[in-house]
């Protein structure tokens, strides 16, 4: 096997779902090698981009074959994963802090484990981890909510709303989720690693650096909102796959509820509305394209 073939095979393995590979890997690799120059050693950049797109589209088509209940189930699962990720992004720093109670220090670990459980498709284990998270972390997670005298709705903290949505999503999944196919371990590692970037590069550093670059102060909450929503919407459009957009919509709705009618500037509400429009537009576009292939 030539080194070019090895590399293309590795890319196909990394980017395509297993069922698709079983049917197509051999002819795809053959075609990639046919297209290559005689002495070529490195995969061609254009072909790599094509494989990334192809991998996303193969997933979209596979989802369509499984049917709408599976599409909704995956979207809820993906939304749950991103909500847990955003909580982990907020809490990752706790691990590294000095003078923190052990029961607070384990909160990010429980969140990370719950993320792994979601990726692996074991929603009951994830639910159990959420129960542990609330048992050990209720003081920290809900502190400002419990200590305030104002009615609940005024002070719906992000954590409370996100946690409620996560538990609801997991419960929905445990009851109606149907077959819970595990996603890959690689996906689990990536999912947990990304929010942990905030552990290595402290949030205030990132915010400061972004302020330096753009000249505008962008709060962390905005970064953890905009980046995932844009990323998911882009994945939907590129892969003709409504699932990421639906997950992004779920993520945005949680943020809308969390900010509530209080404390939100007009600009912020406009931003949330804009993000909602983007998720709806990209979702609709991908659904239309996907439905087009079944017609």
């Amino acid at each position, binding site marked *: 096997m030539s080194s070019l073939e090895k590399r293309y095979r590795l890319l196909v393995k990394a980017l395509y779902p297993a069922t698709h590979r079983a049917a197509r890997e051999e002819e*795809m690799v053959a075609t990639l090698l046919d297209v290559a120059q005689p002495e070529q050693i490195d995969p061609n950049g254009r072909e790599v981009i*094509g494989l990334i797109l192809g991998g996303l589209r193969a997933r979209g088509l596979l989802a369509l074959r499984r049917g709408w209940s599976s599409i909704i189930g995956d979207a809820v699962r993906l939304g749950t994963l991103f909500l847990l990720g955003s909580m982990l992004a907020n809490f990752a720093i706790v691990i590294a802090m000095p003078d923190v109670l052990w029961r607070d220090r384990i909160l990010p670990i429980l969140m990370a484990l719950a993320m792994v459980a979601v990726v692996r498709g074991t929603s009951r284990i994830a639910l159990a981890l959420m129960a542990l998270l609330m048992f050990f972390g209720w003081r920290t997670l809900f502190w400002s909510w419990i200590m305030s005298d104002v009615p609940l709705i005024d002070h719906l903290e992000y954590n409370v709303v996100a946690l409620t949505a996560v538990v609801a999503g997991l419960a929905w999944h445990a009851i109606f989720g149907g077959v819970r196919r595990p996603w890959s371990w690689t996906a689990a590692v990536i999912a947990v690693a990304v929010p942990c970037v905030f552990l290595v590069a402290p949030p205030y550093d990132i915010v400061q650096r972004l302020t330096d670059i753009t000249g505008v102060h962008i709060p962390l909450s905005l970064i953890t909102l905009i980046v995932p929503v844009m990323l998911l919407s882009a994945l939907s459009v590129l892969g003709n796959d409504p699932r990421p957009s639906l997950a992004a919509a779920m993520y945005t709705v949680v943020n809308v509820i969390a900010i509530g009618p209080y404390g939100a500037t007009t600009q912020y509400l406009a931003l949330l509305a804009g993000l909602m429009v983007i998720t709806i537009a990209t979702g609709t576009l991908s659904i239309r394209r996907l439905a*087009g292939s079944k017609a």
Partner: protein
Amino acid sequence: MKTAPPMREPTYYVLASLLAGPLHGYGIIKRTTELSEGRVKLSAGTLYAALDRLTESGVLNPVRDEVVDGRARRYYALTEEGKVAIHAESKRLASAARVVATQGHLATNNGGVR
């Protein structure tokens, strides 16, 4: 009869490339580039995404497998439905082209009258 939505250019050329007979992946890539005079350059990833989609919608089918020089080749052919679809699309494009041709002609005539 329901009119199909307009085809995207790569889809059109992929189907057109199979009019003369079955081709394998690399064959389709070369033929689409030729037919489109270099406008459509499919990468393997986008080609197979298109083949998946078009097989799913029933306009083409894999017809036979071969191994040449140790490389797997699968040949694809248009189905009857595919032939109907590509011809319908070519008629649509032709009539769309006629609109511009006639309007362009009128404009030239008017220019002449002035």
